[in-house]
């Protein structure tokens, strides 16, 4: 029998091409006679387009076309994952800094760049909405025209939606202590090292696209809709993204390049600069007002949470981010009375979209900082107060929903132990610990095809996107286990809507659970066919045959599946094809449209040293604990969780998109927007897992990979408070902010 692949740290599938430079990302793809596209922007947030003069630009040698909104179908097609609100090019006005007003198509990148400089855009500066406060002001300019949402009673405001959740009676609830604070979480950009890139080409009466999307099937449907094509005539190639983190989940410039390809009859390519990528995707910023009641023993009496989330000019998936985050805004705790009201506010800023953690880092920043405040006020240990409020496994904590699905206290105890909670601290140091919880996927559909070839090797077809999490590796491990074949004899094919079956999307840490189960079921389908094959070949009744992990057993006979296949497919060849799927339907009565299939629970503990003279935070030790059910590939879990923690340190310590008074991004680009480097690593980093086999995925697994950043900010901030005595409720914890807080306290 082959070595057990589950629980083994198999090397990353596709790793070799990534260390040799052979891995092809979108920008590495070259098509015959491909044209180059560059976008034309105005350097302002909200502006009325008065006129666009393209004559000089069109005359530049090598320029094929200069396209403005007028050249596209009328009325302008609009698109989005939930609301069809975003036009392909700006119509009449720009609604955020960087929204393109025209596109130049040229034979070379240089010609396109030269022509962009010659497009004359006359525009009128308009006042804009760039903050929560200005979005809610009574005289605020409307970001979206009411006609876009004719049936929406809020269409004359900048409130796209209001999400409400809760239970009990907060007004009537009594508490010994009420903690009342406001927290803010800034705009963060994804900063995938691969800037967004798109290629489109006319193809057999349809269109072919190359885009590093997490969601090729949504893209296929969307392009088909806006172009009036059958789904089958749109082929989306989605090579593995060079980092995505949610930023490559939903359509951006794919509709534009698709139209440009059909207009010119040639392949076209648009490579965004990093700056343009910043202008296209970001995390939803917010202001959260939390009023939390506690009993003297530290148990929660009520949570009353009002969130105002600033989304961009178009909805993208932000409404869902806000709903999912807000649904768990009280954290993973037993709360007798809860009320959450969250507003999704439109603004003249970059559309906010999915971003690793999907609303959880924002809400955990508030609920965990509240726990710490209460612990300090009540004189209760900060770990102890959490343990007193965490539900046991199987206990209901979200009224009317699925119960706690893990031993969460175990995660907290492990994190506390690993950080040395309670042991003496050096001067100037402090420790913090925080938890966070995210609802896993609520609906979904993943289909898989597994082809067992005549030599016993297998090809797995799966619509998952391998964007760095190593989905290929883990899915191959599942197939290797179920078919009993070495992982080296498995190929995993992804990223082409014309060859792999449907998958809803790669999001919400769903792939191990949904696609993993689909593949396990496809393998079971193969094994069922192998049983029949054995029965037929050896004249036995199917009931007397077993096929398990590559071994066929029937009375008086044991052989490998490989040997049986060689005999069965000796002459005319052939293969055994297994189909498998996992579906979860929409549930209209559930606040999220479906109960979460699992919770992603995470605990972070941190020890820091604060320099009171400079406000600088030195990370001494950082611990993450992820309840993953079962780590199918421990190395992959560790690299995901530690990577997430490093990303979380970015929004905790240094990252923040800054807008000027005109809605322009002031720190646009890698020079002024800093993300963690190797030198920002904590001196020690540990990632631990809790494995109780209690997940819905194969072998008891749950989703993983987002957890490591969900509780980073409150854990580090709590440590900073212990080290320095200051409490900060606005991120990021820059040296300047910490220093100022220390100055104010000592004044």
């Amino acid at each position, binding site marked *: 029998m082959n070595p057990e692949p589950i629980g083994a*740290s198999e*090397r*990353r599938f*596709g*790793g*070799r*091409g*990534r*260390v*040799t*430079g*052979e*891995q*092809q*990302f979108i*920008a*590495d793809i*070259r098509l015959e006679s491909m044209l180059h596209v560059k976008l034309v922007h105005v350097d302002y947030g909200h502006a009325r387009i008065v006129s666009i003069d393209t004559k000089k630009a069109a005359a530049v040698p090598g320029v094929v076309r200069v396209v403005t909104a007028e050249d596209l179908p009328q009325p302008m097609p609009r698109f989005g994952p939930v609301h069809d609100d975003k036009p392909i090019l700006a119509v009449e006005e720009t609604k955020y800094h960087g929204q393109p007003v025209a596109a130049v198509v040229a034979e070379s990148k*240089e010609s396109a760049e030269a022509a962009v400089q010659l497009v004359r855009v006359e525009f009128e500066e308009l006042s804009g909405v760039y903050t929560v406060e200005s979005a809610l002001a009574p005289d605020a300019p409307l970001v979206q025209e009411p006609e876009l949402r004719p049936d929406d009673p809020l269409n004359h405001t900048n409130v796209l939606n209001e999400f409400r959740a809760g239970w009990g009676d907060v007004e009537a609830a009594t508490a010994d202590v009420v903690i009342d604070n406001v927290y803010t979480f800034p705009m963060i950009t*994804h*900063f*995938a*090292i*691969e*800037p967004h890139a798109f290629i489109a080409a006319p193809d057999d009466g349809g269109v072919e696209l190359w885009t590093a999307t997490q969601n090729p099937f949504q893209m296929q449907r969307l392009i088909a809709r806006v172009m009036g094509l059958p789904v089958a005539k749109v082929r989306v190639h989605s090579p*593995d*993204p*060079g*980092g*995505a*983190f949610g930023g490559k989940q939903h359509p951006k410039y794919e509709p534009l390049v698709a139209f440009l390809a059909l207009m010119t009859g040639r392949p076209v390519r648009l*490579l965004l*600069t*990093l700056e343009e990528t910043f202008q296209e995707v970001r995390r939803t910023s917010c202001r959260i007002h939390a009023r939390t009641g506690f009993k003297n023993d530290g148990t929660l009496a009520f949570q009353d949470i009002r969130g105002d989330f600033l989304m961009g000019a178009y909805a993208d998936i932000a409404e869902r981010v806000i709903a999912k985050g807000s649904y768990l805004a009280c954290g993973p705790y037993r709360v007798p009375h809860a009320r959450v009201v969250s507003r999704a506010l439109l603004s003249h800023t970059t559309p906010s979209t999915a971003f690793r953690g999907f609303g959880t880092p924002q809400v955990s920043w508030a609920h965990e900082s509240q726990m710490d405040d209460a612990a300090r006020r009540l004189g209760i240990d900060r770990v102890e107060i959490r343990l007193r409020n965490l539900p046991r496994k199987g206990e209901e904590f979200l009224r009317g929903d699925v119960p706690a699905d893990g031993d969460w206290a175990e995660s907290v105890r492990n994190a506390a132990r690993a950080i040395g909670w309670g042991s003496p601290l050096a001067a100037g140091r402090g420790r913090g610990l925080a938890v966070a919880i995210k609802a896993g996927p609520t609906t979904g559909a993943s289909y898989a095809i597994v082809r067992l070839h005549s030599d016993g090797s297998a090809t797995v077809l799966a619509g998952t996107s391998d*964007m*760095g*999490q*190593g989905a290929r590796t883990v899915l191959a491990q599942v197939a290797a286990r179920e078919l009993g074949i070495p992982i080296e004899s498995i190929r995993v094919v992804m990223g082409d809507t014309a060859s792999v079956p449907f998958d809803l999307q790669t999001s919400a840490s769903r792939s191990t659970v949904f696609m993993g189960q689909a593949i396990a079921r496809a393998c079971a389908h193969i094994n069922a066919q192998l049983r029949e094959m054995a029965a037929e070949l050896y004249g036995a009744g199917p009931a007397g045959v077993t096929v398990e992990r590559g071994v066929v057993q029937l009375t008086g006979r044991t052989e490998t599946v490989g040997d049986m296949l060689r005999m069965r497919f000796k002459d005319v060849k052939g293969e055994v094809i297994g189909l498998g799927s996992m579906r979860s339907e929409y549930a209209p009565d559930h606040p999220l449209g479906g109960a979460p299939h699992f919770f992603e629970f995470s605990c972070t503990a941190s020890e820091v040293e604060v320099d009171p003279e400079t406000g600088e935070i030195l990370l001494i030790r950082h611990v993450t604990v992820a309840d993953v059910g079962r780590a199918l590939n421990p*190395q*992959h879990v*560790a*690299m*995901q969780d*530690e*990577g*997430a*923690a*490093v*990303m979380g340190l970015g929004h905790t310590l240094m990252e923040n998109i800054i807008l000027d008074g005109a809605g322009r991004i002031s720190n646009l*680009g*890698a*020079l002024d927007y800093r*993300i*963690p*480097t*190797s*030198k920002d*690593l904590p001196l020690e*980093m540990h990632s631990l897992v809790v494995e109780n086999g209690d997940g819905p995925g194969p072998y008891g697994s749950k989703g993983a990979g987002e957890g490591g950043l969900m509780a980073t900010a409150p854990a580090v901030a709590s440590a900073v408070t212990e080290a320095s005595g200051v409490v900060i409720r606005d991120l990021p914890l820059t040296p300047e902010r910490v220093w100022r807080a220390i100055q104010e306290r000592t004044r």
Partner: protein
Amino acid sequence: MTMRIHVTVNGTEREVDVVESTTLLDFVRDDLHLTGTKECCDLGECGACTLLVEGRAVNSCLMLAAEVEGGEITTIEGLNENGKLSPLQDAFLAKGAVQCGFCIPGQVMAAHDLLQRNPHPTLDEVKEGLSGNLCRCGGYVQICEAVLAASEVS
């Protein structure tokens, strides 16, 4: 204006006509079709475009192709010998340092340069040596482990 450039690329002498203003990065990617070297920030901040000029790591987006006239460059494609991974490349895989992979060619080239200059670096020296190469997947722990492991092999 175009000019003719003579340069040894991964051990092979090449003669290529390029536009004078072409950056070394565009030269490698667009003229030589060696796309293992990646473009991200175009400002010398991210390190994705790191390659070796005369054996030393540079940000190729900050140099002109004309500057390597008569010289020698090594890209990620030139690192493995006869199709076999270098110990450094292998260590990146063994330690789980490769996530999305977009920054990895630059990381590997920067680490290669570091190990050439300092065959047995400390962890702090590795962090310092790679501090110009951003990894948004946040795989720095594993990247540093890989470089240290490779330094033990050499």
